[in-house]
C-alpha cells in the first residue's frame, strides 16, 4: 500500500493532546510529517513540559499509524510552550509566556505552599519558571524555597530575580529590605506592585507563578488589573468559610476577565501513616462541589501531610523532598492540568486581534 500525507493526517485527525481538547493536528502540535515507503518521520511540538503526556501522545500516534500500515515511526520532539496572545504592544512582563495567579479568599489555606510546589513541578518538568511572591502583607517564598541572598540590580531600577532551586524568584520581602512585615497602605501598594511588575528582569519564562496576597482587597485587585494574567488558580480548604471566600476570589477574576483555571482543595483529608486510614478532618469535597456550582474546573485535592508543612519550614517543598508522597503527586497532577489549560487558552487565542489601534495609521 502506498501511503501519502493525507492518509496519515486523516489517521491522526482525531488524536488529542492528553488532558486537553486540543487535537494534535489543529493545534499544530504535529509540525511536520513525512512519508518514505512505509516509514514516517513526524516532528512534534509539545505544548506542555510533562513527559508523561508526551509519551502517551507519542504512543497514540504510533498506534494509529501502525493501523494504516506504517512499519516504523521516527519522532523528532521539541517542547514549545505556547505564549498567550497579548492584546497590547507595550504590555508588562514581555518575555513571559504564561502568567498564573494563585489566589485564595482567606489566609492560611496553603496558597503559598501550592504556589511554590506548582512552580517547582513545572520547573522539574523542564519549563523555565519564575515565582513572584506578591504577598505584600506576609511574603514567605524566600523561606519556603530556602533562598538566601538578595536580588542584584541590573541597572538603576531593574532587579534580577534570584535563583531558588531552579526557579527565578522575586519577593516583596526583597524590596522591603528586612523580614519584618511592612504595613503598606493603598496607594503605596499600588506603586509597589507597579514597580514589581515593570522592574524585574525575568528574561524568557514559560510560566510565571504569582503568589497573591490572601483576600480580595486593594492589592489583589490592583494586581489583577495591572498584570496581564493568563489565568488564576483558587486555593481553598474544605471548610465552608473558606469556600465562601473562594467565591469572592472567583468574582474578582471574572470582573477583570481573567480565566479561572480552577479550584484546588488543600488540606483536603488526612491519611494516617500507621493505619492507612483516611479521615476527612475538615469535611472533604467542598472544593469540588463549589467548583461544580460555579462551573469552573476542579483541579484536585491535596491531603494534609505534616511533611508538607515541614518541607515549607525547611525550605524544601514536598514535590522535591518527597515526590512520591500523595501530596506531591496531587500537586504534580494539578500542575499538569494547569499547563494543559494554559496551552488550550494560548492555542485557541492565536490570531486573536490586538486591541491596540493607532487611529491615523488606519
Amino acid at each position, binding site marked *: 500500500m502506498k501511503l501519502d500525507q493525507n492518509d496519515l493526517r486523516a489517521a491522526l485527525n482525531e488524536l488529542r493532546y492528553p488532558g486537553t481538547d486540543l487535537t494534535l493536528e489543529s493545534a499544530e502540535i504535529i509540525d511536520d510529517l513525512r512519508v518514505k515507503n512505509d516509514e514516517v518521520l513526524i516532528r512534534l511540538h509539545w505544548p506542555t513540559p510533562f513527559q508523561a503526556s508526551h509519551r502517551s501522545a507519542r504512543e497514540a500516534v504510533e498506534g494509529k499509524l501502525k493501523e494504516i500500515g506504517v512499519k516504523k515511526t521516527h519522532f523528532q520532539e521539541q517542547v514549545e510552550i505556547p505564549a498567550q496572545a497579548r*492584546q497590547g504592544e507595550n504590555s508588562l512582563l514581555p518575555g513571559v509566556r504564561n502568567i498564573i495567579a494563585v489566589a485564595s479568599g482567606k489566609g492560611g489555606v496553603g496558597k503559598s505552599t501550592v504556589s511554590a510546589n506548582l512552580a517547582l513541578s513545572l520547573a522539574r518538568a523542564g519549563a523555565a519558571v519564575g515565582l513572584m511572591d506578591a504577598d505584600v502583607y506576609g511574603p514567605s517564598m524566600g523561606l519556603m524555597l530556602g533562598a538566601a541572598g538578595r536580588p542584584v540590580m541590573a541597572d538603576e531600577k531593574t532587579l534580577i530575580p534570584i535563583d531558588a532551586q531552579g526557579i527565578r524568584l522575586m519577593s516583596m520581602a526583597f524590596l522591603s529590605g528586612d523580614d519584618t512585615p511592612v504595613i503598606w497602605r493603598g496607594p503605596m501598594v499600588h506603586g509597589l506592585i507597579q514597580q514589581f511588575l515593570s522592574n524585574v528582569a525575568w528574561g524568557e519564562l514559560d510560566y510565571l507563578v504569582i503568589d497573591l496576597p490572601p483576600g480580595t482587597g486593594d492589592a489583589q485587585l490592583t494586581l489583577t488589573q495591572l498584570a496581564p494574567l493568563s489565568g488564576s488558580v483558587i486555593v481553598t480548604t474544605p471548610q465552608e468559610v473558606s469556600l465562601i471566600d473562594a467565591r469572592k476570589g472567583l468574582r474578582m477574576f471574572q*470582573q477583570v476577565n481573567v480565566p479561572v483555571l480552577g479550584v484546588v482543595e488543600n488540606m483536603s483529608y488526612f491519611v494516617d501513616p500507621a493505619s492507612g486510614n483516611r479521615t476527612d478532618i475538615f469535611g472533604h469535597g467542598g472544593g469540588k462541589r463549589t467548583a461544580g456550582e460555579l462551573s469552573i474546573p476542579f483541579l484536585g485535592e491535596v491531603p494534609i501531610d505534616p511533611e508538607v508543612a515541614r518541607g515549607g519550614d525547611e525550605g524544601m517543598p514536598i514535590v522535591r523532598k518527597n515526590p512520591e508522597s500523595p501530596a506531591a503527586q496531587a500537586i504534580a497532577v494539578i500542575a499538569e492540568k494547569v499547563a494543559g489549560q494554559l496551552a488550550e487558552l494560548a492555542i485557541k487565542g492565536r490570531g486573536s486581534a490586538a486591541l491596540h489601534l493607532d*487611529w491615523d495609521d488606519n
Partner: protein
Amino acid sequence: MSADTKHTIRKLEKAGEYELRIEWDDGVAMRYNTATLRRKCPCASCIHEWTGEQILDPLSVLETVKPVRIEPVGRYALRFHWNDRHDTGLYTFDLLRSLGEPESSPRKND
C-alpha cells in the same frame, strides 16, 4: 450563582474618521461615534466619583474629537488617548458594550 458571561472584544477597528467599530466575542458588532464616546468618558474628572454626576460639559466636546490611540488595559478595559489630550478614561468592556449602536445587519465575510 453561575459564572456570568462577560463579553470580550474580538476586533477593534476604525470604521470611519469619526467612527469606531467593535466586534464582540459573540459575533455582535457595534459602532461608536467618537465624539459621543468621548462625552461618555468615565474618568474621575469627567464623572463625579461619588454622585455619578457628569462633570464634563458635553457641549465642550467638539464633533471632531477622535482617538489618537487606543490600548488595552488588562483583559477588561480599553484606554483611549483622545486628540483633545484627554487620556484618563478607562472604558471597561461592560461600558463599551452598553454604549454601542448594534449594526443592523451582520457584515458579510469580514
